[in-house]
């Protein structure tokens, strides 16, 4: 255990990084799943089938990252887990209803009698919408330190809308990569429209977060931090510009660069996430509980870490295998 230095300091940091990583992977991977769900009513059924086929083999594994994130919060920071989830009782309930509807609609829309397909499509959209909005709402409340004031609720509504727009955007970039023809053209149009919302949302949250707490304000806007951190917002702006350019140029005749919007969008999500993580460190419950105070006993964290070090590379390997097998443009989902 000593190779990590003082385990009461190093283990909470390692687990905070693991937790952050799981949330980020979830937000990107299930982000595009939910985004596809949000976009699904905008087009006709043939396209909808194709859109859902593009996420069919992946959604289950993608959602597992949320289970891992909640699991890590639960196992590594048990005190924070209870505080955060009891405070967010109502939005968590909406999230779970949404994920339930979305998940089962995948199966039911394909297996139920034809005349019920429309209803399950509606459930698929409604579930995706509920999950996206509630995640954004929880993010907003979390940024505001889990305070239930009018200002913080209004802010949470704002983040709910912007995260939903963000998910639709990354969903559209996924479709650009995974589809062709008319549907790809539509996805490019959706992405162009969504980009404005994403830019606006990033700027609004970036300006609002420092005013949520003095501590975050001083972490970002005092000298020399302001200079050292400048690359983060500058890179984000550059990515927005690259996204705009790429979406103007697409579609290309040989479908080159179809991957670019998704890759740029993922990088943008990553940068935004780093910004948030920097703002909150070392707190796991904003302004109340640090990761060191909330951490479970070192011997318990250590035994999880051993398992994680062995198993995580294997998970990466077979996840990569799955993405490799179902690479290229989405095809109809068939059991035979």
């Amino acid at each position: 255990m000593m190779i990590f230095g003082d385990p009461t300091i190093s283990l909470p940091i390692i687990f905070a990084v693991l937790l952050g990583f799981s949330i980020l992977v979830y937000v990107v991977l299930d982000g595009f799943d939910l985004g596809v769900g949000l976009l699904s009513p905008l087009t006709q059924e043939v396209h909808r089938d194709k859109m859902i086929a593009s996420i069919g083999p992946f959604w289950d594994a993608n959602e597992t990252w949320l289970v891992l994130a909640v699991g890590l919060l639960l196992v590594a920071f048990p005190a924070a887990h209870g505080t955060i989830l009891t405070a967010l009782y109502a939005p968590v309930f909406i999230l779970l209803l949404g994920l339930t509807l979305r998940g089962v609609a995948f199966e039911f829309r394909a297996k139920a009698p034809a005349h019920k397909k429309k209803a399950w499509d509606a459930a698929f959209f409604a579930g995706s919408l509920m999950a996206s909005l509630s995640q954004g709402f929880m993010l907003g409340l979390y940024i505001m330190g889990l305070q239930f004031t009018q200002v913080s609720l209004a802010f949470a509504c704002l983040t709910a809308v912007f995260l939903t727009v963000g998910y639709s955007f990354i969903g559209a970039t996924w479709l650009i990569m995974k589809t062709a023809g008319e549907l790809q053209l539509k996805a490019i149009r959706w992405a162009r429209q969504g980009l404005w919302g994403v830019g606006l949302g990033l700027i609004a949250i970036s300006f609002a977060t420092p005013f949520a707490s003095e501590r975050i304000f001083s972490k970002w806007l005092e000298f020399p931090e302001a200079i050292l951190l400048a690359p983060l917002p500058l890179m984000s702006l550059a990515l927005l510009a690259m996204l705009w350019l790429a979406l103007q140029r697409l579609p290309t005749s040989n479908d080159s660069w179809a991957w670019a919007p998704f890759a740029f969008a993922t990088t943008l999500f990553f940068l935004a996430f780093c910004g948030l993580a920097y703002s909150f460190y070392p707190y796991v419950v904003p302004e109340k509980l640090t990761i060191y105070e909330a951490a479970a006993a070192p011997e318990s964290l250590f035994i999880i870490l051993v398992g994680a070090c062995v198993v995580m590379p294997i998970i990466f390997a077979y996840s990569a295998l799955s993405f490799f097998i179902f690479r290229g443009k989405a095809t109809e989902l068939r059991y035979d």
Partner: protein
Amino acid sequence: MDTLILSRIQFGANISFHILFPTITIALGWLLLFFKLRFNSTQDGKWMEAYQFWVKIFALTFALGVVSGITMSFQFGTNWPGFMEKVGNIAGPLLAYEILTAFFLEAVFLGIMLFGFSKVPNWLHTGATVLVAFGTTMSAFWILVLNSWMHTPAGFELRDGVVHATDWMAIIFNPSMPYRLGHKLLASGLTVAFLVAGISAFRMLIGDRGASVRATFKTAVVLAAVLMPLQILMGDKHGLNTLEYQPQKVAAMEGNWETQGNVPLVLFAIPDEETRENHFEVAIPNVASLILTHSFDGVVPGLNDFVAEDGTKMHPPVAPVFYSFRIMVGIGFLMLAVSWAAVFFMLRKRRGVEGVPKLMLWGFLGMTFSGWVATLAGWYTTEIGRQPWLVEGVLTTAAAVGNVPPSMVLSSLIGYLVIYAVLLVAYISVIFYLARKASNKTGETLWAQLKPTAPINQPAE
């Protein structure tokens, strides 16, 4: 109603709904592997047909299991924060290992198993099926390790009121784990056997006498006939283990109030906790002592030993444990009778599936979901039987509940109940729809004959 009872009902509703689906996927994964391997070795299309029909139901069941499972992982935090604060050092790593070694494995390879048949070599598709089945079983292993530890905690010490792990082998292989795991895996096998037999019987009843349906029916009936005696043996061992570690639970299961010898086996009664006696008791003398101690005059602990001097009951509520235990055992013996009778008819004159009378097919159809009922009844026996403890001797349920307003819990509870009811109806009706569709060529018209008054609500596609 207060937050405690509402939260308990909510968690009970969630876990009851959730357990239905893993109970199917755990064993159905291995059954699918059996179909696949039979196809690989015989190249007989009927096995692939069986695989392709049941893999659809597997996918549907799996999705319901995943979404209802996610709900539970959140509810530890939203409703039971005291659980993780007290025993998080033990529950945490066990849950983490479940996620890392089981959830990702099954989720990723499920995609390949469902949609990869035409995209990957046959060995990789078979391998994906193996890994999905293995993943579901690993998941059952880890969660039952944790559940068993809550019944028979071991390998820990209390420091400042918080549980700390001292011996992980003792935690994982805690006293009730092997029995509980074996009991659950066999329950899963039996649930699937009766599900497959019931749906196959349904397809035969609507006129599908195809080779594939007959093969699945035969496989399922033989599976049930083999597993049921094993389950009775395992149930007996599990009961003896419970007698050793949680005697108050066995006392409630038996409806036995006084610690005494020559305890009768109570077949039916109405237990009354106020007067502390059984009304309308129908019992066989000495048999409970015989089952539990293997001797007629063996002394069996009674419920009255578990009442504190101030009158606080430290035993579970008697009636629900008493009744649900009887429902479970009753269904078990019914399963034994039905599956052995069917095997008898199949062996008689070597007529195989054709030898099974039509009335028996109706019987199997009626028992399609009997495994669910038995599983839930067994689950209630053991979980309500652990009350008032959440972790036996360490943490009471009342001490773990979160401080959420009752109105909030009531709203979410109603929401869950509504959606669970809708999903359950949709699930069962889609299974029968898929069965009718798979038997379409001969099935549609005969279905109409079977139910002459009901309009066919499915136009053939």
